[in-house]
């Protein structure tokens, strides 16, 4: 773990990059390195976080422009090598736009930007991103999004359910997401995308520590 380094991607418009870095370095003693979106050399990195924010001003669709950055192009190799990638909020939107995860994230059903703490059921242990080895558990994480309604067609939903790719479901669906989905993984389990912000729940003094496990699991092989 001494040399383990997590790349935190910075797009123009990212605004949770420093929170992610603070949570990893300050709360978990995991080294981080900021990665400008134009870099494509990921060779000295062991895991990558795509943080929340408004990459490229959310122009066209959330995550649509970020998909064409050199860094996202280089991510394909990184993911295929089995290294771990965590996309939070806008990072989740980028992962769906770029095809690393299925489905899409669209405007909340009530059109509000929702900023709240939500209760989430941990549904799958695929990838070891959550602490639910023994039984289904519930965690509380903050959400902050205007376009967080997960949408996919019925075939995709069936595939998500059948292959245990649904990681998190909202207990009280705040945004109209299909099947209450708040987070999903890829088939291999090394890519997780979720709308809630684990990095904002890493210290009791700011409201909880339910996000620690997910960030810590970046160091899993």
């Amino acid at each position, binding site marked *: 773990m001494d040399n383990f380094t997590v790349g935190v991607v910075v797009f123009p418009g990212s605004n949770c990059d420093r929170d992610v870095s603070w949570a990893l370095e300050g709360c978990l003693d995991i080294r981080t390195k900021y990665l400008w979106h134009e870099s494509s050399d990921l060779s000295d990195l062991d895991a990558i976080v795509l943080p929340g924010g408004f990459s490229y001003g959310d122009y066209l669709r959330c995550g649509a422009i970020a998909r064409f950055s050199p860094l996202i192009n280089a991510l394909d190799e990184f993911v295929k090598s089995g290294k771990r990638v965590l996309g939070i909020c806008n990072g989740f939107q980028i992962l769906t736009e770029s095809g690393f995860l299925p*489905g*899409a994230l*669209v405007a909340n*059903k009530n*059109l509000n930007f929702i900023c709240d703490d939500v209760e989430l059921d941990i549904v799958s242990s695929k990838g070891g991103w959550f602490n639910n080895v023994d039984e289904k558990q519930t965690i509380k994480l903050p959400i902050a999004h205007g376009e967080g309604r997960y949408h*996919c*067609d019925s075939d995709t939903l069936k595939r998500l359910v059948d292959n245990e790719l649904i990681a998190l479901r909202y207990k009280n669906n705040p945004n*109209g997401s299909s099947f209450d989905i708040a987070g999903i993984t890829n088939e291999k389990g090394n890519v997780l995308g979720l709308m809630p912000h684990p990095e904002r729940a890493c210290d009791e003094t700011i409201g909880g520590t339910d996000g620690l496990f997910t960030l810590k699991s970046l160091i899993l092989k």
Partner: protein
Amino acid sequence: MDQFAVKVFVRLRPSVLDPAGEATKSASIKLGAEGIKSLRIGKMIEVKIEGNGENEVRGKIDLLCDRLFANTVIEDYEYSLEKL
């Protein structure tokens, strides 16, 4: 080289809920407009583009629509093309 003016229409697929469209429909009814059965909001993108003939330009626009302008998970697209 020929130049073309292209108008691309991107619409949410019928199966995707359009809350902005629903809100605008509700406002339209409050304004007193009667008989509105459905209201959905899309995007229109205007492109001026050069190419060797219509077929080549259609190829470029198809690629742009499929990969960038629309997310085909949630959106459909169509376009009209006019030679300038």
